[in-house]
């Protein structure tokens, strides 16, 4: 198992190499002269030349790429033109809302998805199964950002129960933080709960067909004991993997949800950076979220091996 874990950790290196390369190439995908685009129409030719040299865009591509790798390794993501501070600092300031939103949405997705899927899978063909799976089908198809808007209209505008948008730090005012977080977390987590429910259901169905379940039933155990005591743990193994995928989707979705609810996180940061053509910030947000995703997947793969001793990668 140690050999597998070491290999799994090392496998992160080529993935991150590609990620950093793609992030680097973003600047070169700008149509025309990137420097002219960055500086806008009022820039003089001498300003353009100065900025080109400052960004290193006058050097050959492979040299620029090498320099970019070195900078990223040193934790230097450049300087924001507009915010006038290092990109890493701007990212750090905005990381809390995005992390909290992703985490709360994940909790919502698990809390709704896992029990519904397991119940549906434990009683296939029952009324519960049909209702839950129909809800899950719609849940998969409803666009999260649109669901957010409908939640805002219903719970904030019409009923006035919860704020329509905004953010409070959980470290400053936990009560307010919770009120602000409910609608974004539920609307972001709902889609993924549907996905988790579908997977959990099929895992439960599969486990219930195994021989050891038949044995458990044959020795006279009740349905409840069989499901909770015998089937549950094994059905949860693939679900853990799905939760890993879910986290990645949630990080992407959080960006969109932040715009709907005016949450000052990485999503708001990248969208405002695009409008200001503040490319180092755009690159920084993309790089950090991809790195977070790679890390989450690593943790999930490691957990997967630890939970299920049957799995051997040799």
């Amino acid at each position, binding site marked *: 198992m140690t050999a597998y874990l070491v290999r799994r950790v090392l496998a992160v290196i080529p*993935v991150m190499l590609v990620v950093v390369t793609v992030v680097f190439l973003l600047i070169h995908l700008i149509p025309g002269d990137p420097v002219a685009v960055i500086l806008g129409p009022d820039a003089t030719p001498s300003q353009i030349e100065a900025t080109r040299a400052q960004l290193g865009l006058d050097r050959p591509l492979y040299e620029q790429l090498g320099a970019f790798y070195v900078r990223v390794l040193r934790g230097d993501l450049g300087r924001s033109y507009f915010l006038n501070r290092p990109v890493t600092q701007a990212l750090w300031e905005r990381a809390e809302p995005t992390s909290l939103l992703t985490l709360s949405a994940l909790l919502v997705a698990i809390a709704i998805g896992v029990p519904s899927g397991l119940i549906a899978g434990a009683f296939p063909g029952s009324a519960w199964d049909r209702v839950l799976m129909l809800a899950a*089908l719609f849940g998969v198809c409803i666009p999260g950002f649109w669901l957010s808007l409908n939640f805002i209209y219903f719970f904030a505008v019409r009923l006035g129960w919860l704020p329509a948008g905004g953010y409070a730090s959980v470290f400053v005012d936990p009560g307010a933080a919770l009120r602000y977080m409910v609608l974004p977390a539920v609307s972001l987590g709902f889609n993924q709960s549907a996905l988790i429910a579908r997977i959990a259901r099929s895992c439960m169905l599969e486990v219930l067909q195994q021989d050891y379940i038949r044995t458990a039933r044959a020795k006279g155990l009740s349905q409840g004991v069989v499901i909770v005591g015998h089937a549950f743990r094994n059905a949860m193994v693939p679900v853990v993997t799905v939760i890993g995928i879910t986290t990645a989707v949630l990080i992407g979705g959080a960006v969109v949800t932040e715009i709907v609810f005016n949450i000052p996180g990485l999503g708001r940061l990248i*969208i405002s950076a695009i409008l200001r053509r503040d490319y180092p910030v755009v690159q920084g947000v993309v790089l950090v979220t991809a790195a977070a995703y790679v890390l989450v997947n690593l943790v999930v793969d490691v957990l997967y091996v630890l939970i299920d001793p049957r799995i051997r990668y040799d």
Partner: protein
Amino acid sequence: MTEPGRSTWLQRLARNRSVVAGLALLLAVVLAAAFAGVVATHDPARLDPPKRLLPPSVEHYLGTDEFGRDVWSLVVHGSRVSLLVGLTTMLLTSLGGVVIGLAAGYGRRLDLVLMRVMDGLMAFPAILLAIALMAARGPGVGNVIFALSVVYTPRTAMLIRSTVLGIRDLDYVHAARALGRRDLAIAARHILPNCVGPLLVQGSFIFAYAILAEAILGFLGVGVPPYVPSWGNVIAGGKNVIREAFWVSLFPGLALTLSGLGLNLLGDGLRDTLDPRLRVP
């Protein structure tokens, strides 16, 4: 399912309720897009400020938006952008996925490099990579299609690769090689036909993702330009007036949901019919 061997795949598809329901929903969207000029009651581009934010009525089925544009006509015309982006992205990702997947699965030397690049591209949350590519390229339908194709091609390539790997060492492929067939001919005649089923299933899901992602990009203001009637753009406008006029964002979102539902049903049904190995019990 009593005599699966004796019915053709077309008959099996026609008997699958998911496929029929999904196709019906998709057909409704296609018809709306094809006959948008007839189905729409107003010019979606016509601004009429005195009539702004009117609730749904006989004159304006789904109300008007903040510029007095007719929401029904916007939704009908918006289906064109959605279908164009969805369909083109699906075709481009299928083409790219087949080329890369075959090259990786069949040409063993390329496998390692190609798959590391695909892994790397899939390490980005999909919507964020699309946003980043749009940030570099700027707004426009062509750029949306480009961005979404880059984002979704790796997923198809991985699928084709694994399908190819499952077939590559079967006896009939060895037989073809023993008969002196060239690699390219084997790939085209013996490997590719086996990829059609998975490709159709994956294609309908990518179609659905692409329509959704296009709307998200439009909603964020980095998709098709704001003057183009697209579902995402109309929902974005509706966000600003949600307190006074819920209908502006409600109806284009409903169209988006139903299109996604249609394509997901189609994909689920195709998977059950064409590829029993992938069947979820």
